[in-house]
C-alpha cells in the first residue's frame, strides 16, 4: 500500500478516534488463555480504561443485555457472560480515570426516561463531562420477563419509544438554566428562583411530570451514541445521534457505503455533515510482520471458535442440536430445520438459512474445510489484521476518505488486549498525523470534535 497523498484525499486533516469496548458478554473475548483475567473484577475494568487513556482514546464503552443468553434449552454456557450494571461501573471508573469518555449502552425499552436521564447526568457530572449514552432498543419478550412491564415492544414501536425517550431525557438535561445555583450562602434560596424548570411530557409512551435535579455538565449533557442498523435505526441515528456505533468497519467499500448512506440521511434530517461521527466496532490483531499477524489471527480465531462454539453456531444455523458431533469433521449432512424467526439471538444474519447453508457447503467443499473451519471462515468477520505500520496506513485511508471516523475496538483479551494497540499502533498513527498526540479537551464532546450543546 502506498502512502496517501494528502493533496488528493477528501479529508487530509481527518483524525482517527478510538473507543474501547469492554464487551462482557460475547464469544470473542478469549477466556481460556492463562493471561485472560477476570471479566468482573474492578481491576480489569480499571486496567483497560487506563490503558485506553494512556493511548489517548476518546471513550471506554460498556454494552447492554438484560437477560442471560440461552441455547439448547438452558443458559448459554460457552462464552463470557455476566457483567456489571454499566452506569454503576462507569461511575466508579470516573474516579479512577481523568480524561477518557465513559459510555453506557442503555436500552430505551426497559428503562424509564426520568430515571435513566438522571443516572446518566450523574455520571456526566461525576466525570466532569465525560459521559456518553449508546442508545439501543432491545425489545424481545424474553428480556421483558425480567421487568415489571413484561414482554413488549412491537418492532414498529421501538424507535418511536426511543425518540420520545430521548426528547424527555433532553428536557431533563436542559431543565436547569446555566446560572441556576446561588453564588453564595447569603442568597434567598439555594437555587435561583425560576431557573429550574419542570418537565411535563405526555405522549404515546410516556406521561411524566418532574423537576430535574441536576445542572448541565461541562459538556452540556451526555454524548448520544446510537447502534441499530435498519432503515429506521439509521434514520433515528441521523436525526438524533452524535456518534453511530456501526458494524460496518471491516471492508473499505462497505464502510464508505454505510457512511455515505448516513450522511445522506443526515442531510435529509437537516443536520450538518460535521454533526456525526461513525465508529464501527472492530477487533485489531497486530504482529511484527504480516505473517506473524496472520498467525496470531489464526490463533485468536481458534481460541474464539472452540469446537463447542463452532457446533453451537452451526447448530443455530441448522437449527439442530449438534452437540456431540465432531467439529473438526464435515458439515452436517442433514438439511437445516426452518423455524419461525424469533429474534431470540438478536441477529438477522441467519434468516436466509437455506441459501446460507448451501453457500457454506459449496465453500467448505471447495476449500476442504471442516465444520469448525467453515464457521471461522464464513461466520461474521471481525477484525483488522496487520503490522502497526500497515494498519496505520489502512486506517489513515479509511478516515481520510470518510469511510469511518474511527473504531470502537473490542480487545480479544481482557485486561491486556489493548496494550499492543496503544504501544505499537497509536505511535504509527501519530507519525502519520492521523491521531492526536495529547488530549486537547477534557470532555468527551471535545475529544470527538463535536459542536457544543446549544
Amino acid at each position: 500500500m502506498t502512502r496517501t497523498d494528502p493533496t488528493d484525499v477528501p479529508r487530509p486533516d481527518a483524525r482517527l478516534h478510538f473507543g474501547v469496548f469492554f464487551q462482557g458478554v460475547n464469544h470473542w473475548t478469549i477466556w481460556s488463555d492463562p493471561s485472560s483475567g477476570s471479566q468482573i473484577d474492578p481491576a480489569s475494568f480499571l486496567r483497560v480504561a487506563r490503558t485506553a487513556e494512556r493511548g489517548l482514546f476518546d471513550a471506554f464503552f460498556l454494552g447492554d443485555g438484560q437477560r442471560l443468553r440461552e441455547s439448547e434449552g438452558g443458559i448459554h454456557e460457552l462464552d463470557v457472560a455476566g457483567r456489571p450494571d454499566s452506569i454503576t461501573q462507569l461511575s466508579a471508573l470516573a474516579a479512577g480515570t481523568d480524561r477518557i469518555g465513559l459510555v453506557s449502552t442503555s436500552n430505551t425499552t426497559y428503562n424509564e426516561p426520568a430515571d435513566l436521564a438522571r443516572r446518566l447526568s450523574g455520571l456526566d457530572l461525576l466525570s466532569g463531562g465525560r459521559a456518553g449514552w449508546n442508545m439501543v432498543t432491545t425489545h424481545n419478550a424474553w428480556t421483558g420477563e425480567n421487568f415489571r412491564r413484561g414482554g413488549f415492544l412491537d418492532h414498529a414501536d421501538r424507535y418511536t419509544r426511543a425518540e420520545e425517550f430521548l426528547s424527555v431525557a433532553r428536557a431533563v438535561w436542559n431543565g436547569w438554566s446555566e446560572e441556576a445555583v446561588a453564588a453564595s450562602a447569603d442568597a434567598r434560596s439555594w437555587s435561583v428562583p425560576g431557573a429550574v424548570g419542570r418537565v411535563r411530557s405526555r405522549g404515546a409512551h410516556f406521561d411524566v411530570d418532574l423537576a430535574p435535579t441536576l445542572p448541565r455538565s461541562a459538556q452540556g449533557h451526555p454524548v448520544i451514541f446510537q447502534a441499530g442498523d435498519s432503515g429506521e435505526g439509521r434514520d433515528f441515528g441521523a436525526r438524533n445521534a452524535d456518534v453511530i456505533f456501526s458494524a460496518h468497519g471491516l471492508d473499505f467499500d462497505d464502510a464508505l457505503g454505510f457512511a455515505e448512506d448516513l450522511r445522506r440521511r443526515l442531510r435529509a434530517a437537516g443536520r450538518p455533515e460535521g454533526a456525526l461521527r461513525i465508529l464501527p466496532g472492530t477487533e485489531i490483531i497486530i504482529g511484527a510482520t504480516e505473517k506473524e499477524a496472520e498467525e496470531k489471527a489464526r490463533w485468536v480465531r481458534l481460541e474464539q471458535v472452540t469446537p463447542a462454539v463452532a457446533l453451537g453456531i452451526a447448530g443455530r444455523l441448522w437449527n439442530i442440536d449438534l452437540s456431540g458431533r465432531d467439529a473438526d469433521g464435515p458439515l452436517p449432512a442433514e438439511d437445516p430445520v426452518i423455524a419461525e424467526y424469533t429474534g431470540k439471538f438478536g441477529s438477522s444474519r441467519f434468516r436466509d438459512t437455506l441459501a446460507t447453508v448451501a453457500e457454506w457447503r459449496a465453500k467448505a467443499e471447495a476449500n476442504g474445510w471442516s465444520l469448525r473451519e467453515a464457521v471461522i471462515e464464513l461466520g461474521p468477520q471481525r477484525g483488522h489484521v496487520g503490522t502497526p505500520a500497515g494498519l496505520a496506513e489502512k486506517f489513515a485511508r479509511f478516515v481520510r476518505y470518510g469511510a469511518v471516523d474511527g473504531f470502537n475496538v473490542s480487545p480479544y483479551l481482557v485486561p491486556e488486549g489493548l496494550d499492543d494497540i496503544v504501544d505499537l499502533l497509536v505511535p504509527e498513527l501519530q507519525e502519520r498525523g492521523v491521531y492526536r498526540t495529547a488530549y486537547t479537551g477534557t470532555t468527551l464532546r471535545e475529544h470527538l470534535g463535536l459542536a457544543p450543546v446549544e
Partner: protein
Amino acid sequence: MPRPALRLAVELDGDGAHPAAWRRAAHAPGELLSPRRLARTAAAAENAGFTLVTLDDSILPPASGAGPVGRIGAVERAAFVAASTSVVGVAPVVATTYAEPFHVSSQLSSLDHVSAGRAGWVVGAEEDPSAARAWGRPLVEGPEALAREARDGVRVVRDLWDSWEDNAVIRSVATSRYLDRERLHAVDFTGETYSVKGPSIVPRPPQGRPVVLARQGLVPAELTDVALVGGTTAKETGAAGDAAKAAGVPLAFAEIEVALDTPRDTARERIADLERYSPWEERPGRLRYTGSAEGLVVLLAELAASVDGVRLLPLVLDEDLSVLSRLVLPELFVRRLATRPLPGTTLRTSLGLPRPASRFATATTLVREETR
C-alpha cells in the same frame, strides 16, 4: 462476655441534616454537586474511622423552598465513593417503589463488585405521589402498598444476588464451558403486582449479598440485616433496638441527628443560625443530640447497651464531621466503645455478619465443589 463494640455509620447526603445546612457549608452552593466535594467528604468519613457511609436519595428534589434542589443519584455517588476510598462501606438509599428490582439488583451487585465487598443498601420508599408522576408509573399509595413494594423489591433483589452461585463461572477449558448452567438459577418471582424471571446478569456479589439496612418495620425482619431504629429519647431508642432484635433482625443501628459544639460556635448557636432560615423539624424515629463531643460519647456509651451501631446524621457535614473525627470517634475507639473497619475486609465482616450461602446452592453443587 463484653458486648461487641458499636459500628459507626454516617449519612453524607447534601450538606447535612438541616435543610439550611448549605448556608454553613465550606464551599459555594453549586460545588455540592461536584465530584471533588463528594470525594473530600467521603475521605473525611473514611479517615475518621466510620464503618459505613450512607447516601440518601429520591427521584424528587431533596428539598423544596430555599433548600438544595440538586442531587446526583445515590448509586452513582456510591460507586464513585467506593472507587475513591478503600476501607469504608458504602450504602445508597434505593427505593423499589417504582424502580425495576432487576436494575436495582444489578446496580447494588455492581456496587459490591466495584467496592470489593463494601456495599450496603438502605431500602427506601417513595412516599410522595409526585414520585409516581416523575417515573410515569401508577401511584403506589398508602403504607401497606409501600411496604409491599419494598418487601417484594428486597425479596427479588436478594434472590437475584443468589441466582449465580459463588462458583458459577467455571472457566473449564476441558469442556469449553465458561459457565456452569447448573449453578445459575431462575428466581421465578411472582408477586402481587409483577413477576421477575432471572437469573441476574451480574455474577454473585463478593459479599454474597450486600448488607440490607431498612427502617424498622419497612421490610420483614428475615429480609433485613440491619434495622435502623430510633425514638425521642435514648431509652425509647434502646427499646426500639431491643424490639428489632427480638423480631429477628441480626443488627440494630440507632439513628441520631447530631449538632456538635465547634471551636467557634456552640451547637445551639449553630442551630439558631440555621433556624433563621428554616426549621429543623423533628423526624419521628430519630433521636437528636445537641451539645458537646463529650456528651455525645456519653450518649453513645449508654446506647451501646442495646444497639449494635449508630447512624449519625450531622447538622452540617463540613462542620460536624471534623468534630466527630477529631473528638468523638477517637474517644470511642480509645474507650473501646466502637471499632473501626480493618483494611481488606468486607462490610459484612466489619459488621460481624456471616457471608450467606446462595439460597439456591444445592447439596450436589456443594459436594461437587469439595471434590474439585
